[in-house]
């Protein structure tokens, strides 16, 4: 038995863990109990926890083929995005969609149908998945794509591992001409201006905003909207142009100890947000930054989840549809700022339209921020849940470890359909997580 948790370090559960290194290992673990596949443990809550059996997929980490013409990669589910970047960026390819950490597995990225800063243009991770191979409850491996077994394909994207064990996938990478990003920072004085900035820049490949959720009043929701695109060699200064993919990897730092609970309080958080905004505003305009700094600023601090202490933290992430987003986001940020529980890094992002069976994104705006796990923040998040519901929003399962079943099913009518399908297909008897049980999926 091992004590496992998601990245948020809460909830924790004693789980029987088996590491799968081959397809045969996966088949051998089916049958006696339910199980959930786990990649690199970067979902925040209880998505990848099953006390009866948590199948550690990191042993299945082989890349099987790469087509240098089309940029298509076939790989096993345990391969990390980090490995893909290390291998293919020097050859001019980058993940077409990447979340805010490169330490996610391919299988995890598919299961959560993760999104990146280009969702408004390109959709989620699944848009670039050609096919997946999934082991079902009977040990049979099915290849599923948009054309064949499309139901299994559709429900496995965003299905949180509840349709079977993802073994392999073929994905398409993006051609890039350098390892650098041209970044444009637009400071905005309010939330409304931030949304205006997103709407005015829908053609930017990447857009995301850091939003201040600690300041009340007329600067409520002030943000740093950051746009970006992959630099072409002629956008680079001459010293970088000669070797456009040579980006010096910075040495990652570690958090040496769990911070005491007091380190994060309304004063330190407000001071941090003030400073961050001012520093960002001063650096407003155009800058050339390396891919690692641009996409993965938090990866530079390896155990950043320890700053919340041993009690851990919850991440809140919802998406509000376009028509309610302005008013709804205002209510959310106002409530958070008034509570004095805003976090260091809150993120606002515009989503584009996405058809999906059970994926999180829909057209509108998404807000993500973390809270230390305590009674006050749990009460606040209940309020945020209510505001989300009132505005027709829904919740991101890869971040969730606490949303009540009733709230989730109200927010997402697809939950009942998915649960019914799971029963009909017999998936519920083979694949389950603490999250699926909590939410009745």
């Amino acid at each position, binding site marked *: 038995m091992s004590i496992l948790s998601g990245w948020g370090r809460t909830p924790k559960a004693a789980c029987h863990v088996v*590491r799968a290194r081959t397809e045969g290992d996966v088949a051998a673990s089916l049958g006696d109990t339910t199980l959930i596949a786990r990649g690199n443990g970067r979902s925040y809550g209880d998505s990848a926890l099953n006390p009866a059996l948590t199948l550690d997929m990191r042993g299945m980490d*082989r*890349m*099987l083929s790469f087509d240098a013409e089309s940029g298509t990669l076939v790989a096993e589910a345990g391969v990390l995005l980090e*490995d893909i970047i290390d291998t293919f960026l020097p050859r001019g390819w980058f993940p077409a969609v990447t979340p805010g950490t490169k330490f996610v597995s391919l299988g995890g990225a598919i299961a959560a149908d993760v999104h990146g800063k280009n969702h408004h243009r390109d959709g989620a991770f699944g848009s670039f998945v050609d096919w997946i191979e999934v082991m079902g409850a009977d040990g049979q491996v099915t290849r599923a794509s948009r054309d064949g077994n499309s139901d299994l394909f559709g429900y496995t994207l965003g299905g949180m591992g509840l349709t079977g064990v993802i073994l392999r996938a073929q994905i398409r990478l993006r051609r890039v001409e350098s390892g650098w990003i041209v970044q444009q920072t637009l400071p905005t004085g309010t939330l409304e201006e931030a949304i205006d900035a997103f709407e005015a820049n829908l053609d930017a490949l990447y857009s995301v905003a850091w939003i201040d959720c600690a300041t009340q009043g007329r600067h409520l929701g002030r943000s740093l909207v950051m746009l970006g695109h992959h630099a072409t060699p002629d956008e680079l200064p001459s010293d970088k142009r000669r070797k456009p993919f040579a980006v010096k990897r910075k040495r990652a730092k570690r958090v040496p100890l769990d911070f005491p609970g007091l380190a994060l309080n309304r004063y330190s958080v407000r001071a941090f947000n003030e400073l961050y905004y001012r520093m960002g505003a001063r650096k407003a305009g155009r800058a050339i930054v390396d891919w690692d700094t641009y996409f993965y600023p938090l990866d530079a601090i390896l155990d950043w989840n320890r700053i919340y202490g041993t009690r851990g933290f919850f991440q809140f992430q919802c998406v509000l549809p376009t028509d309610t987003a302005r008013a709804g986001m205002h209510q959310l940020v106002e409530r958070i700022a008034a509570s004095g529980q805003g976090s260091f890094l809150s993120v606002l992002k515009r989503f584009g339209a996405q058809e999906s069976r059970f994926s999180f994104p829909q057209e509108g705006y998404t807000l993500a921020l973390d809270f230390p796990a305590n009674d006050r923040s749990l009460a606040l998040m209940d309020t945020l849940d209510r505001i989300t519901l009132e505005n027709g929003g829904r919740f991101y399962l890869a971040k969730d470890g606490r949303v009540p079943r009733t709230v989730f099913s109200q927010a997402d009518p697809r939950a009942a359909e998915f649960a019914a399908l799971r029963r009909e297909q017999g998936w519920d008897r083979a694949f389950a997580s603490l999250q699926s049980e909590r939410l009745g999926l």
Partner: protein
Amino acid sequence: MKGGPVLILGATSGMAREIARSFAACGHPIQLAARNVARLEDDRADLETRHGVAVTLHEFDALDLASHKGFVEGLPALPDIAVCAVGAMGTQEENAANPEKGAMVMRANFEGPASILGHLANAMEARGSGTLVGISSVAGDRGRASNYVYGSAKAGFTAFLSGLRNRLAKTGVHVLTVKPGFVATAMTEGMDLPEKLTADPKEVGHAIRIAVQSQKNVIYIRPVWRLIMAIIKAIPEPIFKKTEI
């Protein structure tokens, strides 16, 4: 960087996979050897896809001593570096209850590895260059009730490597002994291992490549193991025999 071929014996383990990747990343062609090589097709694809090196697969049975000479002669090229990651732990209870099973563990961890490295050593000595890497174990540093059957085989293998290094010191052939300590692999699946003492297979691959390049003689993957084993070895036998470690 380019280099000569690297042979990995017992290539199906998680540790072997990372050792192969570490050398392939530096441009070495890789020869993967194990029983039932069909299992290694995906590993070959992985090394080719990640690192663009040539990979060949070779049927090899560590327990079939009679085949070892022919195996070495049959390789497409005598490797520059040969890593022996062959081994099997069994469980101590079984090994103790059934000495025949215990003897098999000894053969898999000592006799087989010593035989194949013996043949490779002779060929490398004749050529006048090469590096032999033996993956032994901290378990061989002192016999303990919890795994002395496996440990005694590894003790034998450690002594063999030490003697081989001594014999070949002036011939241009170098011998590296690796004592990994705890490693998170299939072999240790289900054991409750202390985090600070447990290396990731990736760490092992990296450390071995560095040790080969710098011609180290004996390495522990996590340095703290050198200290731990020094203490365990220093405990007087009358006390040691009553302990449970």
